[in-house]
């Protein structure tokens, strides 16, 4: 029986080798290292995030913003379905790129961590602690053969006594704080845009439009498909509570962003001619 299994495995490996070419047999389980010291299953889980919806988070002068750009999956779906931004605690919100069901697990865990922390320590959970705990949670999935890593990340926005924060907790178990970060499709372009800005000087309202602009620009516009931008923020204006950006303001930001992009396109067309 053992011999037969080996033969079957090898033929599967051959198939995979021709398909991916990278893993070469060291990528069949999360408890296997490659000779270079890589754990491929964890890297593949990261690819689920990299090829998924675009999510942006920025920390401004007076608050922090999270934005998700969701392509319309089917015309029959109500707008506002499959939300990707959640409230973890009054002072903390989270956006989940990558696989949404996996992301929901992370949100649920974050909510429990925040509640337990409050119950035991009597104060709201500091964002660094929350994001570290979430990263440790993700990492645990890469230690056991019978589990698979989560195919999502957690982009956390918060505003506490130390100011606005944006943290990214990744599926491989790292967690960093950012001035601004983008994950998912088109992240490189968005990151380049964000690096140009002086985020510390921008107000949240100004940044809303800029974030919409980044998201719309990175879309592969040949498809002309419909999309929805989900926006949420936590700022002085919202009394340091994490809430969805009100519909009118969200629409206004999106429209202004679209207008600016059209204007830039026209200007560049003029220059070319």
């Amino acid at each position: 029986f053992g011999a037969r299994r080996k033969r079957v495995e090898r033929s599967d490996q051959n198939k995979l080798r021709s398909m991916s070419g990278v893993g070469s047999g060291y990528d069949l389980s999360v408890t296997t290292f490659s000779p270079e010291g890589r754990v491929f299953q964890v890297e593949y889980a990261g690819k689920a995030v990299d090829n998924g919806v675009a999510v942006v988070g920025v920390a401004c002068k007076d608050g922090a913003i999270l934005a998700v750009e969701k392509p319309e999956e089917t015309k029959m779906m109500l707008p506002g379905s499959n939300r990707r931004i959640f409230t973890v605690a009054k002072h903390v919100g989270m956006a989940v790129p990558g696989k949404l069901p996996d992301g929901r697990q992370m949100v649920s865990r974050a909510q429990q961590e925040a509640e337990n922390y409050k119950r035991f320590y009597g104060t709201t959970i500091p964002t660094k602690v929350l994001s570290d705990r979430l990263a440790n949670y993700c990492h645990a999935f890469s230690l056991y053969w019978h589990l698979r890593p989560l195919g999502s990340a957690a982009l956390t926005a918060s505003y506490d006594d130390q100011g606005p924060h944006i943290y990214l907790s990744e599926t491989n178990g790292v967690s960093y704080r950012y001035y601004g970060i983008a994950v998912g499709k088109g992240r490189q372009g968005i990151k380049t845009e964000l690096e140009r800005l002086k985020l510390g000087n921008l107000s949240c309202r100004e940044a809303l439009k800029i974030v919409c602009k980044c998201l719309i620009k990175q879309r592969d516009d040949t498809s002309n498909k419909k999309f929805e931008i989900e926006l949420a923020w936590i700022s002085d204006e919202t009394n340091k509570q994490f809430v969805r950006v009100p519909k009118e303001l969200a629409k206004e930001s999106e429209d202004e962003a679209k207008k600016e992009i059209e204007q830039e396109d026209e200007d560049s067309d003029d220059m070319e001619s």
Partner: protein
Amino acid sequence: EKGAMATGSGKMKEVLTGTTIMACTYDGGVVLGADSRTSSGNYVANKVADKITKVCDKVYLCRSGSAAHTQAVAGYANLYLNQHAIELGEKGVCVRSAANIVKEIAYTNKQWMNAGMIVAGWDKNEGGQVFVVPMGGTLMEVPFAVGGSGSIYINAFVDKNWKPKMTKSECKAFVRKAVSLAISRDGSSGGVIRTVTVDKDEQVKEFLPGNEVQVYHDEIQFSQGAQKVEFVKA
């Protein structure tokens, strides 16, 4: 050792800190104060006890009730707060968190516990704070608090004489005066008066020796050295 005397019936009495403890805020910090008598029935097991225990940096716990119970609570609080401090990093533990942990332990185990505690300290966000966790496991933030068997004799005194924004030396003198008044009336309180002062710059533990504790109402003054005996001529 337990420090209890076997009485005629052979049963040991639990070691108690029938006590006077207090803590109060001043402008920029807190002062904690306590007597030093640990009694087991009528036997004074320790006449120089330290009832003010450090649970983490800049946060202290005054203990009254069962010595065993409160020492156990302090031990657990210290354990959890050390772990908490590591997780927080440079942020530093808040007094509120320390008090909440003490409260959780007291409340969850309320059936078995005989402990009235005061948590007080200083942190950089909220300054000096005092939290009282009486028996039963409530948690209250207060500007000043008194506890233990001796506290009943000085409730009115502290209510009347505490004022906000005292200076450090005013506050220390106030605490020492209050504890000495309780000692003069409560049989379970006595010995020395220990104080801990916590503010932004320091956390200082001091004690007032027994002979320097103020006495009232013709109490026998504690004297140092051999007593001079005068013989009356017949």
